[in-house]
C-alpha cells in the first residue's frame, strides 16, 4: 500500500511540545516514506498544527528529534525549509501580483537558479492546470484557483516534501475534488511526498497512510483499509416480526448476534453477500435490512471516543468565514 516504499524522508522520534503545564504533543514517533501521501487526522487541539509546525521548523520541539529530507529541524532549519513546500490554512499570496510574479518571488527566495525559473513556472502551472492564468492578477482568482496556485508555488523549488495544512478548508466539494486530483497527479508525476492535516474523512481516504492523533498522542497509524479492518467486520441489522426468535435462530446457526433497538445486529465478514443467508436462517418474516460497512468515521469514533464532526463543529465555521471574508 505504501507508495514509493523507499527510504524515510521524515523521521520523528519521541517528539514533544509543552506549553507551560499543557502538553500539546506527547512523545510521538513515526516515519514517512519517500513518495507517500500521509494524512494527520485529529480533532481540534489534538496537536495536529503543533506537530506540522515543528516538522516545518516553524515551532521548536520541547524534546525529541525530527529529521526532514535528511536534515535535523532544530540544527538546520534553513536547509529543511529549502527542501519542503508549505501551504498554510490561510492564503499567503500577494493578490496585487500576477500568478507568475508570485511564483518568481518564491523562486528567488528559495534560490532556484535564475536560468531554471521560467521553466519551473511553466511546469508547476501545468501541474495545477493554471497555465492559461499565468499573467493574470491573483485578485481575479477564485478561492480554489488561489489554493492551487499556492500548491504550485510550494512546488517551485522542487521540494522533497509538500506540507498541506488543511488544504481544502473553505473550498466547495467540487473544488476540493479538483484539488485532490492535482495532489495525486503531482505525486504521480514528481514523486513528491505529501504530508497533510485534514478533518475531512473522505479526504483522508486518499492517503496511503493515516495517523489519528488525539490529546497529543498517535492513537492509530495505518492504511485506511487496515484501520477499518481493525475495528471489526461489517454489520447487518435485521428488523423482523419476531426479533427474539430470529436472534435465537441466528445464534444456533453460529452467527455472532446482539439485540438492538428494532431488531438483531449480526457481525459478518461481508455484509452484502450474507444478506440472503441471514434472511433464510432467521426463519421469521424479515421487515427491513440495513448493511453497515465500517467507515473512517467509525475508526475515528473508535479511537477518540467522539465523532470528528462534533469535535470540529465549533471551530470550522469561524475559520471558513475568515477564509471567505479574506477572499472577497
Amino acid at each position, binding site marked *: 500500500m505504501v507508495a514509493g516504499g523507499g527510504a524515510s524522508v521524515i523521521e520523528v522520534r519521541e517528539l514533544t511540545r509543552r506549553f507551560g503545564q499543557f502538553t500539546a504533543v506527547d512523545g510521538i514517533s513515526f516515519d514517512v516514506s519517500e513518495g507517500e501521501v500521509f494524512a494527520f487526522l485529529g480533532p481540534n487541539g489534538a496537536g495536529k498544527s503543533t506537530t506540522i509546525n515543528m516538522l516545518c521548523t516553524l515551532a521548536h520541539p520541547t524534546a525529541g528529534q525530527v529529521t526532514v529530507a535528511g536534515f535535523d529541524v532544530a540544527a538546520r532549519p534553513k536547509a529543511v525549509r529549502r527542501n519542503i513546500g508549505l501551504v498554510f490554512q490561510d492564503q499567503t499570496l500577494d493578490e496585487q501580483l500576477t500568478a507568475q510574479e508570485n511564483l518568481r518571488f518564491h523562486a*528567488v527566495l528559495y534560490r532556484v537558479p535564475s536560468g531554471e525559473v521560467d521553466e519551473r513556472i511553466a511546469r508547476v502551472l501545468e501541474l495545477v492546470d493554471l497555465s492559461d492564468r499565468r499573467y493574470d492578477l491573483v485578485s481575479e482568482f477564485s478561492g480554489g484557483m488561489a489554493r492551487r496556485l499556492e500548491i504550485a508555488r510550494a512546488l517551485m523549488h522542487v521540494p522533497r516534501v509538500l506540507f498541506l495544512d488543511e488544504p481544502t478548508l473553505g473550498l466547495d466539494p467540487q473544488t476540493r475534488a479538483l484539488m485532490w486530483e492535482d495532489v495525486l497527479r503531482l505525486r504521480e508525476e514528481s514523486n513528491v511526498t505529501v504530508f497533510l492535516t485534514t478533518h475531512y474523512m473522505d479526504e483522508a481516504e486518499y492517503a496511503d497512510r493515516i495517523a489519528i492523533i488525539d490529546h497529543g498522542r498517535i492513537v492509530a497509524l495505518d492504511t485506511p483499509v487496515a484501520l477499518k479492518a481493525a475495528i471489526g467486520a461489517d454489520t447487518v441489522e435485521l428488523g423482523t416480526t419476531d426479533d427474539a426468535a430470529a436472534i435465537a435462530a441466528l445464534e444456533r446457526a453460529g452467527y455472532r448476534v446482539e439485540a438492538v433497538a428494532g431488531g438483531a445486529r449480526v457481525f459478518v465478514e461481508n455484509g452484502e453477500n450474507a444478506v440472503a443467508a441471514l434472511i433464510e436462517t432467521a426463519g421469521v418474516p424479515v421487515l427491513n435490512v440495513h448493511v453497515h460497512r465500517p467507515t473512517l468515521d467509525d475508526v475515528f469514533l473508535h479511537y477518540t471516543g467522539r465523532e470528528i464532526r462534533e469535535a470540529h463543529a465549533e471551530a470550522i465555521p469561524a475559520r471558513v468565514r475568515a477564509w471567505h471574508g479574506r477572499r472577497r
Partner: protein
Amino acid sequence: MSSAPLPSKIADGSDTVLRDEVRTTGMVWLRELIRFERTRTRILSGLIQPVLFLVVMGYGMSGLVGTTAGFDFKKFMFPGIMAMSVVTTAIFSGMSIVWDREFGFLREMLVAPTSRASLALGKTAGGASVAAAQGTIMLVLAPLIGVHLTAVLVLEIIGLELLMAIAMTAFGVFVATHIERMEGFQVVMQMLLFPMIFLSGALFPLNSLPGWLTVLTRINPLTYAVAPLRQVVFAAQNMPAAARHRFPATVELFGHTLSIGTEIAIVVVFAGIFIALAIRGFSRTE
C-alpha cells in the same frame, strides 16, 4: 522521477550565500515597485495632500507673510512639502508590512530559507525608491510656484530625497514589526508622523520657536533631512540677501549654523540606526 532533476544548490543545504541574499533583496525591492506602479490611485492620492498644503497653506500664509524681494512663502514651503510627501510615502511603505501581515504574504516571506536582513533591506530599498519617486513627481509643480529648476538641482533633490526616504522607510519597517494589528497603524500615524513633520521645519522656519519646541525640533531626525533639501533649492534660486534673511533655510545647533555636509551626515547616522532597528525588528518577527 519524471520531474526536472533537483537543482544542486537546493539539494545541498549550504546556508548563506551572499549572491542569493542580494537576489532576495532585489526581488523584495522589485515587488514594491510593481505594486507602486500598479496602484495609480495611490500615486494620485499621495499627491493630493501635499498639493492641498502647498495651495491652501501656501497661498494663505503668503498673504500673511508677504513678499520679500520677490520671494514668497510658497517658495519657502515648496521643498518642505516635497519632503513631507517623501516622508509620508516612506513611512507608509515601510509600514505596509502591517498589510502584508494582514493579507498573509508576510508569512510567505518569513518562512523562506533566507536571511531576515535581506528581506528588511529589500523592503527598505523598495519603499525608499517609491517614496523618492513620489517626491520627485512633485517637481511638476515647481513652475507653478515659480521655483526655478536646473538639471543639477533635480539630481541633488533626488539624491537627498532618497537618503531621507531610506531613513524613514527603515523607521516605518521598524515600527511595523512592533505592531500586530491594523489599529496600531493609525495611532502611529497620529502620534509620530504628523508631529515629526510639523516639527521638522517643512512647513515654517524653526528659528523663532519657544525653547522647549526648539529642543523637540532638534532631536527630530527630519529636521536635518528637510534643511539640506531647502538649501539646495534656494541655492539655485536668484535670492536677494533680504529674502535669505526673511526665509532662513539653515539649522542652528548649540549656536552653530550646521553645514549641509553635517546635516547629511546626521541623516546618514539616523538612517544607519533605523536600518539596524528594522533588521532587528524583522528578525524577531514571528
